[in-house]
């Protein structure tokens, strides 16, 4: 029937998708966390009680105050409101995740497609052996090494994480592409004389998208966690940047008495990472069901 317009079919598809997704309540919780964190990050300057505390601000008179009505999460040793800094901290965490993924996914995926399609040739050997070299080094160690050579900053931390992250996408897409290349629709396209570009990006890539998407949402959490780890050891964001990892590192010195300085930022990291992971699980279920 050609009567029903495209958008109606899309809406129907979306409804079905949401039904499948929402059948797992844990995924919905994940989605909620992600939306919450994104909202707080986006509107931090308007909803944070003390937005100026995220910048070059100190007030030693109010240092190390326990949680109260005035400061719901307490203040740190510099007298800055921890709640406000967490809201701003979400910005850096999300930025870290988004920037890193948008840097690593395109090259990782393209290399994977090429290597998978040209399986058995020197192109595959070259790409995959380089990938193996990167995969052989534990990710955090590599990032630490890169960061300690460069001057510590958020930018360099993102570069370092990106450098170690792309091989995972290459590996993933390589596996998918090398099996997809034997499918009939790919062979059909080859027989009809379609260009390599067409085969790679119009035939094979669309069939990898669901897996890439799932991995991205799972990775979002990991990237944030590694970014926090780098900040924790002092190789990431520099003060007074309100980075969650740095906040935990600073607060850890005052445990257990001034517990709020470290605990709330740590919880904030946990919620962000957990949210993206649960969401990723939800996506995986969603796509897995569709394939059946």
């Amino acid at each position, binding site marked *: 029937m050609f009567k029903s317009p495209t958008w109606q079919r899309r809406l129907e598809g979306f409804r079905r998708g949401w039904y499948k997704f929402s059948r797992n309540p844990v995924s919905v919780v994940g989605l909620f966390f992600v939306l919450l964190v994104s909202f707080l990050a986006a509107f931090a300057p308007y909803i944070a009680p003390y937005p100026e505390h995220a910048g*070059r*601000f*100190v007030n*030693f*008179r109010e*240092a*190390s105050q326990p949680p109260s009505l005035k400061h719901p999460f307490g203040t740190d*040793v*510099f007298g800055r409101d921890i709640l406000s800094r967490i809201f701003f901290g979400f910005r850096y965490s999300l930025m870290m995740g988004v920037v890193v993924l948008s840097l690593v996914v395109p090259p990782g995926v393209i290399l994977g497609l090429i290597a998978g399609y040209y399986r058995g040739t020197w192109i595959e050997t070259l790409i995959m052996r380089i990938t193996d070299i990167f995969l052989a080094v534990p990710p955090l160690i590599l990032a630490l090494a890169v960061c300690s050579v460069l001057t*510590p900053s958020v930018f360099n931390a993102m570069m370092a994480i990106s450098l170690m992250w792309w091989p995972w996408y290459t590996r993933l897409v390589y596996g998918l592409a090398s099996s997809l290349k034997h499918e009939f629709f790919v062979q059909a396209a080859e027989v009809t004389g379609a260009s390599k570009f067409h085969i790679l990006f119009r035939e094979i890539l669309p069939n990898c998208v669901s897996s890439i998407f799932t991995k991205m949402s799972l990775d979002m959490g990991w990237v944030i966690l590694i970014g926090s780890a780098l900040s924790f050891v*002092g190789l990431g964001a*520099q*003060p*007074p940047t309100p980075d969650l990892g740095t906040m935990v590192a*600073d607060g*850890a*010195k*005052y*445990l257990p*008495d*001034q517990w709020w300085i470290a605990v709330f930022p740590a919880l904030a990291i946990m919620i962000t990472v957990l949210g993206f992971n649960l969401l990723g699980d939800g996506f995986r279920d969603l796509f897995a069901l569709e394939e059946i």
Partner: protein
Amino acid sequence: MRRGTVFALSVLALVAFGLAAWAGGERVLRITFAWPTYIDPAVGSDFSSSSAFVNLYDTLVYPDVNGDPQPHVATHWEVSEDGTVWTFYLRDDVYFHDGTPLTAEDVKFSMDRITTIGEGYGFLFVDRVEGTEVVDDYTVRFYLKEPFGPFLTTLYRLYIVNKDLVEANIKRPGPYGEWGDYGKEFLLTHDAGSGPYMVKEFRVEEELVMVKNPNYWLPIPEEAPDEVRFIGTTEPATIRTMMARRELEISDQWQPQEAWKALDAMEGVDITSFFPGTSFYLMLHTRKPPTDDIHFRRAMAWAFDYETVVRDIFPGSIQSRGPVAQSLPGHDPTVFQFHRDLDKAREELRKSKYYDQLDQIEVEFHWIAEVPDEEKVALLFMANMAEIGINVKVVKVPWMSVVEEMANMKTSPNIVSIFVAPHYPEAGSILESRYHSSSAPTWEQNEWLLDETFDKMLEDALATVDREERFRKYAELQHYIMDLCPSLFLFDQVEKHAYQAAYIDWPAARGEVIPVMGYNMAARFIKVYPEKREALLKGG
């Protein structure tokens, strides 16, 4: 089976033995320090190194609580009329740890070695001591190039090393010609001293373990510790845990404010504080833009909030008045003192050649990672400077890296925040180590002042044997420095240590403070009572 039983029994025996040794009451004194420590007297010069020297080595003279020199290995001395020839008469009953007697030869060797190597406290003697003469076995004579007033007090830093032992351990070839490496590699982890304690084990990254010298020539009280451990950590949570378990007797001085409160609340633990003559400086690089501009530096000096520092960040300290700590002999109380005045700051800034490009300029501020409270100063500085439009980049740097970067004019940052203590208790000491050209590549100077006039004035002051006249010259120098504004003089440090008041007796905590860095950590004067410790552990 039988083998298993034997093994189990031996483990049991070991455990029992360990417990017995513990219950028998080992007298251990554990102190934490900012690391690393260099136990070679020709290399080290920081707090932990100086504290180690005092325990491992002997000196010709020893400071009393006023900082005045008292006889030690030297029983008496003479000085020529022109003040350039100093003759010392030594005791004949001092022996090194390996049993060889300490003679004038060893004193000469130690002086030659430290002046040849030129590191650590070497700058006290390089260019100053022309030569050393062995008159007889127990008489030694120093020839100075020029009369040097505070010579006696600098001898607190001439730690006498065992010539035979060092010579037997020289590695050749080395950087010192016929002397090879001058025993540097050996002395990195061993001692060659005659002091009340000797090195038992030194794990360079972590811990220095020393044991009592049973043959020390001076009586050591029985209650003095049998074993002294210098532990290389200042990590507040670790310090707290060790203090609570009574596994640490004296804490380092680098704990953050919050930690002092928690330590003070612990049963049996007290905090002691004294003014050791140490000052806290923001050292401004006078040869690197934009801190090479005097108006820029003055603007920062006017904009900084000194009061918050002494009131909220380092309570108990006092704002410095000039480069010399107020408790140090030779300080001039009439020296100018900056206070926070934003109008004056802006006025100075307008005169600066960088005024038009403030938004493109970033001042790099390095603070010592091992001292968490310094971050508060750094962020306060950053906030203060933002008010007059100066951008500050705050960087946390480990001590080892700071020492490395400050060795070179190019790698030295715009600003480093550091505590500096005098090496001998006089204003001249701090003026020399902070601003004399010879100290520019050390961690004690980031200014790179390299000011010939100042060098000459200081050299003249130090050459003055008459104490009153010398102090008058020190006063002039303090005014001279103040005019150049090469540093921000934040505060005179109050040195705090948490210590186990319930089971150790520490003279410095009783007010008997020796105003020379390291000397308050002389373990032979500290008494430890293990039975009181046991009681405290059982009670807790």
